[in-house]
């Protein structure tokens, strides 16, 4: 049974005290209390979600609304400051790609390192590596350091690795939308086959078209709080209205 349950989840970051995070020792010695010393940023506030098998949850909201933080909490990368996260099922996450790889390693080495971190056993690795190379389709560059890759190559490799073992819960940040048409098509087929087998997908995106296409449930985030949670059919129009977006033709197959 796969599910995600979040109860009263809060995420609070301590903000840097000064641009470089220093400068407090003198203040501490002198006993000066700068009100900024204990500045906190609440990235998520009182988030409650229940997602079950076969659900595809879309997260929408402005930049900085907390979408990526919520993805990190769901995938277990960031434990919540308070509240509980209950996740049953093996999670794979594809979050911001640029920082996600060690630039010195070649694409091929990256497959082995990241693949094992995602849970691919050594004995399956060679077979999986070949599949990943084929799916990523970046040619001879697979043997070059990933620091030489274009954004599209990063994306294709990252996506191919993250989806190489079928995750029971796939967590995707909007990044995956940066690919070219051919890649989008292949990734769409892969995501749809995951969905068809009852796996959970959590997707953060600015594209209401993708939400409409993939998701049955939608959470609309605003300043770290879920302001609306419900079916895509109900929440997307409200969101568009709130943002002042006129529905695009692509959204029309919501009906």
């Amino acid at each position, binding site marked *: 049974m796969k599910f995600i349950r979040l109860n009263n989840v809060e995420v609070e*970051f*301590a903000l840097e005290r000064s641009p470089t*995070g220093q400068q407090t020792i003198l203040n501490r010695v002198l006993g000066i209390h700068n009100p900024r010393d204990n500045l906190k940023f609440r990235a998520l506030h009182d988030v409650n979600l229940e997602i079950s098998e076969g659900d595809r949850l879309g997260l929408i909201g402005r930049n900085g609304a907390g979408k990526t933080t919520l993805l*990190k909490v769901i*995938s*277990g*990368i*960031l*434990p919540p*400051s308070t509240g509980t996260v209950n996740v049953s099922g093996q*999670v794979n*996450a594809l*979050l*911001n790609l640029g*920082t*996600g*790889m*060690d630039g*010195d*390693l070649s694409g091929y*080495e990256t497959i*082995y*390192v*990241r693949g*094992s*971190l*995602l849970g691919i*056993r*050594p004995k399956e690795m060679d077979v999986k590596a070949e599949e990943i190379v084929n799916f990523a389709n970046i040619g001879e560059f697979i043997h070059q350091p990933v620091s030489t890759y274009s954004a599209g190559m990063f994306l294709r490799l990252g996506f191919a690795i993250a989806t190489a073992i079928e995750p029971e819960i796939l967590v995707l940040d909007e990044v995956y939308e940066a690919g070219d048409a051919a890649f989008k098509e292949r990734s769409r087929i892969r995501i749809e086959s995951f969905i068809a087998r009852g796996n959970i997908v959590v997707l953060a995106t600015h594209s209401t078209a993708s939400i409409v296409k993939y998701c049955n449930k939608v959470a609309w985030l605003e300043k770290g709080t879920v302001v609306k949670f419900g079916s895509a059919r109900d929440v997307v129009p409200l969101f568009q209205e709130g943002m002042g977006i006129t529905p695009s033709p692509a959204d029309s197959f919501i009906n």
Partner: protein
Amino acid sequence: MIISISAYTADMSSALRQHWIWRPLSHHDLRRRFRRSVFGVLWIVFQQMFFAVGAGLLWSTLFGVDARSFIPFVASGLAVWSFITGSYTSGCSTFSQAQVYLKQIPVNSSIFIYRMLYTNLVILFIGVLTSFFLVSILLPQNIGWGTLLVLPGIGMVAAAAFVTTQTLAYIGMRFRDVQHALPSLFQLLFVLTPILYPIDILRARGLEITEFINPFTSIIEVIRAPLINGVAAQWPHYAIVIAYIVVFQVLSVAVHARWKHEMPYWL
């Protein structure tokens, strides 16, 4: 208290069992360090030999000791010294070096402690083997059954490095000044520790007490004494290393209980 010990044990042993993740990471670390160099990992051997032979020849004339015994002494002392201080300094960057992964992939952060330790252990083994090679050329008469005492010595030093790396991984991450303070501390300690001068000099000056108040001397001696002389180190050295391990084990459980959960917020 009991809860934090069992949480600690469960966490560290599950990360240990995931050796198929951290071992390849270590191999990549080593390979990366020598990327595009012709001699690769052999540079570890060259650097150690070059310094040990050069410094050994020079210092042996200064102190009037036999170069044949002094060169392996410098080589082995240096190998263990760089290993143990390396577990402090690289320990501090255990998590920050892994943030590429920790920010992206749901994985137990403790595997990166083993990654760090394993990388350093490989370098220690190379250093010990190089020293043994020097001993076999310069002091073959000292090799005997007693030489096997190197093995428990390595075991103890590895255990000391294990608890050190864990402790510093959290402390170095929480207090970023530590990693900047450590090099100056070690620079001083390097002079205070008998690596480039024989312990006998301390004994001759009536300073033998200093031999047993610096734990780094003991950590070096439990490997160096059997390696170059084929005999056990003096017993207080073993006692000191065990005490060191116990102290740092307690510290490592404490920092784990306090900060394991919070750590992702500092990345």
